């Protein structure tokens, strides 16, 4: 190991500037001027800094911001069926899901929690979701004083959808960024699935 390390070290020899050249450079502040060149250049241009709280920059479409759970427009419930794939794929393990059996033997999502502080916004959860049930909204202003505020519960996440993905925005989001995914997992018309399950809670047929 040690031998290798020694080999890897290459000693660079720096050419020393000597004599008159060096003297002139020092006298005429050449190096300083060189350093100040950019400053001087930008001194007379319009500043690029935005005065953030006063001036807000609109997020680009597809920006990965605060999480939301998609609300099914027909049932007004979360589209999420609780398959847990997002939790499985999440590299920072910030998604926790608790599911149980409902009255009609269907799968009920009791708790869906995202610890926002641990999230690294990779959106793998969005990619993994077979039903397009979880999104990252364009909203990014969620600073807070309390750590507990950053633990997103199912209700909060659904609220986020209503707030930040209202109207056609959500539809657009999936169409533009995750559309093909959702189509792949669309259940064929005459496929027999979920016998005896409540259509209101888990609706695979409208899973695009």
């Amino acid at each position, binding site marked *: 190991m040690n031998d290798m390390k020694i080999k890897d070290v290459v000693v660079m020899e720096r050419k020393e500037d000597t004599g008159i050249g060096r003297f002139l450079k020092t006298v005429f502040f050449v190096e300083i001027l060189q350093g100040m060149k950019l400053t001087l250049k930008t001194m007379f241009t319009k500043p690029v800094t935005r005065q953030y709280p006063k001036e807000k920059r609109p997020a680009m479409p597809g920006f990965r911001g605060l999480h939301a759970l998609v609300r099914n427009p027909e049932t007004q419930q979360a589209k999420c069926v609780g398959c847990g794939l997002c939790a499985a794929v999440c590299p920072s393990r910030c998604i926790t899901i608790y599911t149980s059996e409902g009255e009609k033997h*269907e*799968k009920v999502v009791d708790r869906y929690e995202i610890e926002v502080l641990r999230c690294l916004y990779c959106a793998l959860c969005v990619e993994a979701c077979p039903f397009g049930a979880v999104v990252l909204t364009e909203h990014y202003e969620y600073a807070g004083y309390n750590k507990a505020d950053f633990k997103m519960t199912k209700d909060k996440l659904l609220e986020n959808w209503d707030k930040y993905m209202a109207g056609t925005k959500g539809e657009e989001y999936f169409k533009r960024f995750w559309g093909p995914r959702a189509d792949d997992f669309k259940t064929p018309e005459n496929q027999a699935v979920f016998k005896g399950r409540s259509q209101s809670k*888990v609706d695979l047929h409208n899973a695009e």
Partner: protein
Amino acid sequence: MIKITIDGIEVQTDREITILEAAKQVGIEIPTLCTFKNLSPSGSCRMCLVEIERLSRPQTACTVKITDGMVVRTNSEAIMRARKAVLEFLLINHPLDCPVCDKAGECILQDLSAKYGAAAGRFKEGKRTNPVSFEDPVIVRDMQRCILCTRCVRTCDDLQGAFAISVINRGSHSLIEPFSGGRFDCEYCGNCLSACPVGAITSKLHRHTYRPWYIERQVETICGHCGVGCTLTLQMRENTIIRVIPDFEKGLNSGMLCVMGRFGYDYTEHEERLRSPLIRKDGELVPVSWEEAVEFTAWRLKELVKKYGGGAVAGIASGRCTNEDNYMLQKLIRYVLGSNNIDSAARLFYRPAVSYLERMFGQGITANLIPGIANSDGVFVAGGDPTTINPVLGIAVRSVWKKGGKVFVVGKSGGLRSNIKHELNHAEGAGALVLTWILAKVYEKKNFISENSIIDKKLSALKVPDMDMLVRVGVSPEALQYTADELVRLKNPVVIIGPETVLYGNGSKNLFLLGALNYVLNGRLFVLMDEPNTQGCLDMGCSPGVLVGGRPVELETFGHKMENTAGMKTPEGTGLNLFEMINGANSGSIKAMFVMGENPVFNIPDKKKVESALQKLEFLAVSDIFLTETASLADVVFPASAWSEKDGTYTNLERRLQRLRKGTMSSRGRADWKILADICKALGMKESYTDVKSVWDEISRISSVHSGVRYESLIGRGGIWPYGGEPLRGIEGDFEVEGLEDMPELPGFAQSGRVILKEDKSLIHSSSLSRYSPALMGVASEPLLMINPVTAQSLGLSDNERVVITSDKGTAVAILRADRGMPEGVAALSNTFKDNGFRSIVGYTIDPTLKSLNITDRVVTIERAKQL
């Protein structure tokens, strides 16, 4: 030596194995669906097709045996196409509901589809729909997802021997159904569930809550329900057990579990679990701190010992607690408080039976291996149904039958009904008659020359009943003759002894007859054990006459081994046994008692007597996980940690020492040894124990049978007592047989309207913890009275009726269930349900020879319950 080539890799074996096994040896994976551990190959899923040179069609690797010079290809294009085709076929009718299927993530079909399957399906015709059944309390059957690999059916038939499920219909309409149709009518072992490669048969307990990646921790431990000691794995999420799965590689059960082991784990999370220590203040049990409870107990014990002497204290140990717990209790009672009054519920049957047999043949006579039963060619069972008391041992008995061996059952055949040729179901109380006849016939036919004059002399003193007598007790001559004839032919027999041989009288004679039969047959003995650590409890010296390691107390008076090795001075004199303690409490000679993990009020007959005796005590301390009938009488109650919450060791009925490992911690209880060590400490004990290992170290230092067994080395199949099935000591002493030369009396049949009551050891509820398990209660939620249909009819009662059972000692309410296996005039009630336990309504005496439980007052009247 066979040489074959698989994918260019040469494989050499000296055995004729299948291509699949050969490929596995060199690390070539051949996908399979219908192949499963321990099952014979079926060749039906066609997933494992491989190409063999010089054969035109692809062959199934799971069925074809290798031959010399065979050249196999597993990865050619044609094979890949074949795999894709099979998966496509399977998926045309398989719902793609993986997101809500509990099997997703560990589903073989899913894995193989990802690996070999097509990206898209071409099937347009509409899927077949099959019913989803939620009717079962613990199992969900979703036949939409079934791929008909028949692993479940073959497991049920070939391994479990229950024959409960089968394929019905034909072709593409085939589906798996219970024989009974609709709901399973089986033992609910759930072994089909672990055989299912897809989500067709799943557990209801973790339905829709389970995902393989939710498992945060898993722990390999030992089942805490019966004396077999199956190895199983607990899978946990956030301190709750999500599910229990068997371990196919380790343990004596090789992947088989019973209903209790697989589903009966949820009692640990029951809401009635004790949460904090309780002390009786002004007649009420109120929560207190641990320190207060420990100090109070130590103070009371110290005070009472000072006042009445050590002999006024007694301790009751438990076969549900670990070796370390029991060791610590006997240390408290014997060495800290100075009393030899320590005993356990092992006194009721197991301890007297085993020690009697050991007196006949030497120590360790019952230390035989359970997996060895399967190698036997005949099993003789008496006194209890192994398939309900020790279910996995019962499976071994069935496998004997499966291999062509013979099974004989004296008494109710129960779960072995389909494995016997003739019933030997005798009238109540005639067991000794039947056994005497069989023993005498076998002895005569074997032309046996005994080396043991004591047994020989006793054998020749036996009076053999004539056939008429046996016919009168309901046994057919044909069955007897068959049994005797076949027994003589056995080369490697097994004799299994259950609790009924002792519990209902004639104990010593029954044990002598069975012991002698085993001696004449040269077989191996097994004594059924219904608690996980009854044997360990005895090994730890929780019996008045023996010290740790089975060392008799008398030896200590001149050997001083305990004193020399551990500095512990053993009190003199033999202590009181369980019954004498109760009597002592009643008469006032016992003033204080410590009960650990036991419920004597419920488990010893004559509830009123035991209850009043315990009430007379000046001080009663109980450590348990629930507020049991006994705990509610106590002055101090310690919440103990349950089976899944502690570390330690269990000794099973074959005396295999196995490690229990801590899994969840859903209660605030402490391990019993810890509670006891704290009390000892408060009473002035010098040693301090940091963990369970330090307790074990002390045990292995002073116990002769455990010496040298290191705690760390107890893994997997390791760590058995030093018995190879051979007696440790020679046979020397004589032993008593009560009524040896008497002709067994014909049992007096109960007068009309009166029925003899027995204890029913049901499969679901053979453990007293089962009543706290919602899963097991879901399978059998009410006490049942099993009775012969003819007797029921003569009493004017019909099936499924609520009845009141009245004896001289009490009453119980149960649902009547007609059972043809019961002899006429006999009914059976289990000792499980609160207020309706069998033992609460019968009385008892003590067997004079065995000093064991002899249940009396069993004549009851059964009436229809009044409508509410």
